[in-house]
């Protein structure tokens, strides 16, 4: 028998032909059903407002995923918040100056990474800044004051990432001196956002934007042909913006002198301290960093805010981040690649 005729008469041929015939209809039906809802939710965690926004076909799945992601942030806050008395970090701050404190592997790992940032950034980023930030009062339920110079000088010897002892074998943290305190404010929020983003992805949410007090991670797209659209706040114009840009599978964080500050005798004192002086870093009004993860963006933003634009220009090694500065003379400096690849647009 003719082999072509044999194939045409076979059962398999009819099945394949039927699938091929119905395929366009099936695909069309699927695309017609792919309605997306833009689902949003807000919660107060880590001492700030956390917003989640996602594009997804099922509102219920999205709500479940948000619930899990919020729970993850709450879990991390329970580990790393210095203000929560029961957290691992609070325990470290209370006892590590006297004897090594046993911690979870997760807490140990983030402290290890934070110390590595300290080394990489030549001590301009230092999580042992705790005694200084507590003295000023920013972020604590106490009055914000400009401390006496002598008091700052007394506490400065307690600052230094080299005085933190990390024992990986015993998973313990110890301080070289009693009175030292860790402040993970420059990294914990970014880490929590990254963990929440991982949870959302695990729950099948691919297109979302997480915003915790201005630290943002955006995944995927807002719609088929549109990335997420993010603005950068003006450091002096209240509720005004300086620029906007597109964001997808990347994070942005901003450090500024305008969110938490006091003015004494017309002088502004804000909450980002130079670990070498114990005083607010004086070179920058605002600095935004674009990075692959929120943790990196968070740490880099603190570091670059402290060293300022001129310091940034002196960094010779290739960087994985992009920067935008507003210096003390209201002048804006930015990486050209940000403008080119992320459609950075300045607003009037």
């Amino acid at each position, binding site marked *: 028998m003719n082999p072509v005729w044999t194939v045409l008469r076979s059962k398999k041929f009819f099945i394949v032909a039927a699938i091929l015939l119905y395929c366009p209809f099936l695909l069309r039906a699927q695309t017609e059903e792919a*309605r997306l809802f833009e689902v949003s939710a807000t919660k107060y965690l880590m001492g700030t*407002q956390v917003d989640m926004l996602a594009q997804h076909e099922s509102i219920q799945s999205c709500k479940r995923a948000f619930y899990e992601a919020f729970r993850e942030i709450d879990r991390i806050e329970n580990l790393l918040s210095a203000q929560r008395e029961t957290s691992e970090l609070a325990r470290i701050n209370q006892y590590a100056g006297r004897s090594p404190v046993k911690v979870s592997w997760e807490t140990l790992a983030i402290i290890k990474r934070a110390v590595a940032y300290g080394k990489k950034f030549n001590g301009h980023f230092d999580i042992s800044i705790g005694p200084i930030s507590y003295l000023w009062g920013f972020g604590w339920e106490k009055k914000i004051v400009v401390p006496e110079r002598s008091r700052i000088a007394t506490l400065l010897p307690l600052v230094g990432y080299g005085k933190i002892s990390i024992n990986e074998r015993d998973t313990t943290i110890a301080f070289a001196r009693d009175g030292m305190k860790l402040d993970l404010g420059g990294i914990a929020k970014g880490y929590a956002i990254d963990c929440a983003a991982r949870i959302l992805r695990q729950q099948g949410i691919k297109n979302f934007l997480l915003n915790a007090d201005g*630290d943002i991670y955006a995944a995927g797209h807002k719609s088929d042909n549109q990335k997420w659209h993010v603005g*950068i706040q003006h450091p002096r114009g*209240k509720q005004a913006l300086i620029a906007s840009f597109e964001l997808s599978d990347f994070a942005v964080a901003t450090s500024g002198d305008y969110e938490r500050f006091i003015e004494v005798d017309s002088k502004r004192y804000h909450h980002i301290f130079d670990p070498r002086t114990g005083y607010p870093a004086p070179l920058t009004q605002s600095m935004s960093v674009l990075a692959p993860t929120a943790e990196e963006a968070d740490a880099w933003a603190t570091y670059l805010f402290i060293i300022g634009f001129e310091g940034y220009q002196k960094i010779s090694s290739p960087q994985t981040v992009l920067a935008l500065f507003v210096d003390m003379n209201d002048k804006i400096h930015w990486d050209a690649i940000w403008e080119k690849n992320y459609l950075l647009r300045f607003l009037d």
Partner: protein
Amino acid sequence: MMNRRNFLGSFSLLSLGLAASPAPTCIAARAVAPEDFCLNLVTDDSDLAIPLLEALLARALSAYKNLKFSEYKLAGQHIADLVLIRNRRLLDYKTSHDELAKGLYEIARNLNLPRKVENPVLMKFYTEDRRRTAATLNLFGSNILLKQLSLTENQGPHEVESETGRVTFVIRNKSVKITAATCRHKTCMKMGSINAAGQSLVCIPSRLRIAIEGQDESGLDGVTF
């Protein structure tokens, strides 16, 4: 206590404001302009309501590819009901005969609406109308919608309170400003005044948020600061 009339009054505030604004007069322009759609549902059974509404909106509003959804808890006793605003008009789904109205009628029957409920949620399905002017102020405490106010008339000082604090604010010339707060650092008072859709004033220690309904004209999804 909120009765049905008050409920409709408060949630149709925006629609009345919009209805009072000049309607588009050019038919061609209306045909190309995106349709304005807002469906508010107060219910104590969101697990039942959401799949029903998802399915109905997929059938009856196939032209919309991206509808927005948000959900807020409401404190106290409310009247569970549906309110539909379409093209800036409050529509009575009980007397309309299109597929959407019939579907909503069925959903209302399934949810046993209207009726009194305790601590329900307010669900909103809506398109973002960027032509919309800032008209409604939402007051949230720990993300529970406490109150809605009109932004179009001078009001206050008003006080809004949560378990952890209290703020005082005024509405003047369609702008809102926090004038006093019980929190220690008064950061919310330093935020100045807001007047555009999508902007908000937040007092973190008190967990209070004063937000102007809608999205800002630039259509931003977030702001880094």
